């Protein structure tokens, strides 16, 4: 047995597992940890993040929710680095939901590293200074002759004391003033920038991780919920007596829509979502509930239900494209003139991208224990769920059930995928209402069909593109008309529309960019790199179309478009930096062997996109046969997100983004028919399987910029890189996703 990669402490844990016992260290509630600790580094801030036991064990709390993006490992690495800890001595514990101690405990927008890098460094540096203070006192030496390294404080003479020996005295040290803390020189880093395995790998590989869906509390019953197949519909009646007579069914009842549960059904970062009308079933186990759900016959009031029709949206968008117009985002001075200049070559193209679902592998679920107050005790609520913004469910409890937020306890669990879906808490509103109504602690689990039908989808959309190139092969004009969607109040839905600072065209002086919104009733939400993941496809495809029209090399045309090296808005991380763009574009091209001779039916495709403060370029190598079977052989990726914290985690995010991007562009589409979502499960909404996985070659430019997040930005360039490669291989231009609709089969 080869266990060389498992530390001694991990082996101890494994033996505990194998003996059938619980993993005590990981299963201990936080209070118990605090009660049992031998010593604690106390300070106004530090005790929330760092604890050191006298045996040298360092506990670091990971503040932000983990959904596979690796943040539970990444943020503690930063603390451990500044402390001078040995990573093997560190035990990471997911912090309880307590914003007063841990700040905004949310995961979204690839912002966790960006937001927390300095704060985590301060936590680590502060702990280090307290340890050094303790060593100075105990060893009777000057602070300036001490340094912290490998979980010890070491004196210039070579004498040293371990963090464990110092812990109790360190806890008595004055808390350093944050402004006076200094940070380590990055050249001396021993943790940041290395490859560290995710802290939960062992429990995942042994099946012992607790996701929300695995929660089990005393007396817990199981629940399901069935909404109207047309969003916005309400239940009037159902075959109640038949359902209640089914084996394992405890209760069944109608819930009416409840606007108090949220501000809007399309809310995003406030995390609030209206309770939709439907029928709840409570049973003895999940299967009894699912079986009863399948036998439900509901009479629905569909008077206010969605009439959305994807085919009509396509027709309407084409009409809007012909008409032109829209809200202007960029107004190039002479776009119309250049497009009608007879000396220029011009092109017009209509692009289309579908709605897609999140399909997190773990279907939405939430466990709630509503306890009715009595004898002066108020109502209270305890909630267990995987959420990107767990604290926000408290607002639903207060608004919908009148339970004061201070009487709501939220347990955030590891998420079996998020991708933006778990930023909205409609499923939590359902679980709360079911526990409240039934008077039972319940775990609500959605079927896969519930999970798809009730999604907050990646919004579909359209872009009508016009461009002109001059006789000397230069871009002369760019006219981009985005046609997207707004809700019934006229507010653009999440992910629809264009963000000025991230468009490549901000680097070009004769671009017109405008947008028009059409109404939609289907719920839309954040889906990994919202907006960017679809606009990248259009923008980067059309740049390639114009390069081809100009008979120019795509790489040359794209870097020329970026122009001189400059930051479009100095100091604003959300603004394109053309120098960083050029660097990643050139690096990806060079590593992929851009320009090399390709066999018949093979092609290289290039794309770049800037979003979430990241500059990313990708080159896809694709082969296509005459029957439109295509295979992505290799994707070469160049990324600039500044310094990398966890190399293994960073590469994992890029690899995953490539697979996710490919899966989505190749296979996935959600359509609405009179409001109803037409895809019910994976047989109609497939996810890419392992055999189609390309080789993925990842390169980082670790620029001097501040480190920023990597959960999203490597996804958007993938689709255009692949379709540009298909064009290079076949001469056929793809302007619509998924490629399966165009007769292309990913093999």
């Amino acid at each position, binding site marked *: *047995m*080869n*266990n060389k*990669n498992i530390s001694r402490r991990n*082996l101890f844990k*494994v033996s505990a*597992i*194998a003996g059938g016992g619980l993993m005590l260290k990981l299963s201990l509630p936080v209070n118990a940890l605090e009660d049992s600790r031998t010593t604690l580094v106390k300070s106004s801030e530090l005790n929330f993040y760092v604890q050191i036991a006298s045996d040298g064990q360092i506990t670091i709390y990971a503040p932000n929710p983990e*959904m*596979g*993006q*690796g943040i539970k490992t990444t943020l503690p690495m930063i603390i451990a680095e500044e402390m001078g800890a040995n990573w093997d001595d560190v035990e990471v514990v997911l912090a309880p939901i307590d914003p007063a101690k841990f700040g905004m405990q949310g995961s979204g927008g690839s912002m966790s590293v960006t937001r927390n890098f300095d704060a985590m460094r301060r936590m680590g540096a502060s702990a280090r200074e307290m340890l050094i203070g303790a060593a100075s006192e105990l060893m009777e030496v000057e602070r300036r002759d001490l340094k912290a390294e490998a979980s010890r404080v070491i004196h210039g003479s070579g004498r040293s004391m371990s963090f464990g020996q110092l812990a109790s005295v360190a806890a008595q040290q004055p808390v350093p003033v944050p402004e006076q803390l200094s940070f380590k020189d990055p050249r001396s880093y021993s943790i940041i920038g290395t*490859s560290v*395995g*995710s802290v*939960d*790998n062992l429990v*995942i*590989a*042994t*099946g*012992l991780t607790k*996701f929300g*869906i695995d929660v*089990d509390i005393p007396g817990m019953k199981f629940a399901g919920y069935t909404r109207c197949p047309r969003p916005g519909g309400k239940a009037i009646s159902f075959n109640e007596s038949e359902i209640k007579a089914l084996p*394992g069914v405890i209760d069944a009842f109608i819930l009416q829509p409840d606007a108090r549960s949220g501000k809007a059904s399309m809310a995003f970062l406030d995390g609030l979502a209206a309770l939709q009308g439907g029928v709840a079933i409570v049973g003895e*186990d*999940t*299967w*009894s509930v699912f*079986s009863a759900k399948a036998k439900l016959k509901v009479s629905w009031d569909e008077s206010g239900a969605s009439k959305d029709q994807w085919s009509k949206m396509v027709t309407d968008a084409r009409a809007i494209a012909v008409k032109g117009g829209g809200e202007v985002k960029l107004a190039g001075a002479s776009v119309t003139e250049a497009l009608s200049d007879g000396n220029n070559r011009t092109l017009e193209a209509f692009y289309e991208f579908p709605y897609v679902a999140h*399909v*997190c*592998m*773990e*279907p939405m679920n939430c466990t709630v224990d509503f306890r009715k107050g009595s004898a002066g005790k108020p109502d209270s609520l305890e909630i267990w769920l995987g959420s990107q913004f767990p604290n926000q469910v408290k607002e639903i409890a207060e608004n919908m059930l009148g339970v004061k937020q201070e009487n709501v306890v939220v347990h955030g669990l*590891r*998420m*079996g*995928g*998020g991708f933006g879906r778990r930023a909205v808490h409609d499923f939590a509103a359902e679980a709360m209402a079911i526990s409240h109504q039934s008077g039972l602690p319940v775990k609500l*689990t959605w079927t*896969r069909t519930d999970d798809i039908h009730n999604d907050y989808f990646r919004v579909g959309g359209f872009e009508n593109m016009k461009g002109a190139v001059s006789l000397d092969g230069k871009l002369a004009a760019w006219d981009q008309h985005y046609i997207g969607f707004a809700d019934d109040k006229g507010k653009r839905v999440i992910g629809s529309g264009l963000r000025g600072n991230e468009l490549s065209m901000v680097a070009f002086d004769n671009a017109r960019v405008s947008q028009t919104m059409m109404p939609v009733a289907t719920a839309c939400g954040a889906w990994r790199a919202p907006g960017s993941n679809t606009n990248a496809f259009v923008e980067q495809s059309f740049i390639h179309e114009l390069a081809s029209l100009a008979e120019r090399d795509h790489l040359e045309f794209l870097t020329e478009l970026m122009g001189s090296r400059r930051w479009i808005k100095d100091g604003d991380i959300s603004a394109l930096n053309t120098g960083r763009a050029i660097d990643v574009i050139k690096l990806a091209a060079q590593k992929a062997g851009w320009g090399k001779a390709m066999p018949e039916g093979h092609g290289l495709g290039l794309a770049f996109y800037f979003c979430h403060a990241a500059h990313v370029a990708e080159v896809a190598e694709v082969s296509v046969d005459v029957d439109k079977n295509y295979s992505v052989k290799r994707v070469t990726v160049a990324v600039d997100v500044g310094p990398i914290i966890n190399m*293994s985690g960073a590469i*994992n995010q890029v*690899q*995953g983004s*490539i*697979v*996710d991007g490919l*899966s989505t562009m190749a296979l996935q589409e959600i359509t609405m028919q009179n409001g109803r979502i037409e895809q019910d*499960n*994976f*047989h109609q909404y497939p*996810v*890419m*399987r*392992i*055999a189609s996985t390309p080789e*993925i070659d990842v390169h980082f430019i670790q620029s001097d910029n501040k480190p920023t997040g990597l959960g999203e930005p490597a996804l958007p360039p993938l689709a255009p890189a692949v379709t540009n490669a298909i064009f290079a291989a076949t001469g056929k231009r793809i302007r619509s996703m998924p490629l399966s609709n165009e007769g292309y089969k990913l093999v």
Partner: protein
Amino acid sequence: MSKHKLTVNGNSLEVDVEGDMPLLWVLRDKFKLTGTKFGCGIAQCGACTVHIDGVAVRSCVLPVSSVTGLVTTIEGLAQGEDLHPLQSAWIEHDVPQCGYCQAGQIMSAAALLSKNSQPSDNDIDQALAGNYCRCGTYVRIRRAVHTAASFYNADKRNS
């Protein structure tokens, strides 16, 4: 309702449920073995993969009444204090992202290795064709299975 006797991870267990209840829900809701995951309920995603007599099956569509062999779940894959070579390889290659599908991936791969201790990429792709990874960790899954195969063979040589 009827009584069903099962052997799960070497333990004899009995459960009183409807015979059509899939093994998945018996494991999860009745035996509290939650390492085996629910993903789709129609044998499309593989999150629910367990072994019956060493063969990988999708427990979400397998009625408990039809289970006759020895059931092994992810919780029973390690031998005593030793992780299965696949579990060590999963840690070494830092495979998981969200982690939800990984038990199913590992169970499918374990069934493969028990028959074929030197699988090619193609063998791996075939054996794991029924397992979705929504996070896209397929690159690392392939590498980890190869690494586990080398552990596996080294073990055999040593024993």
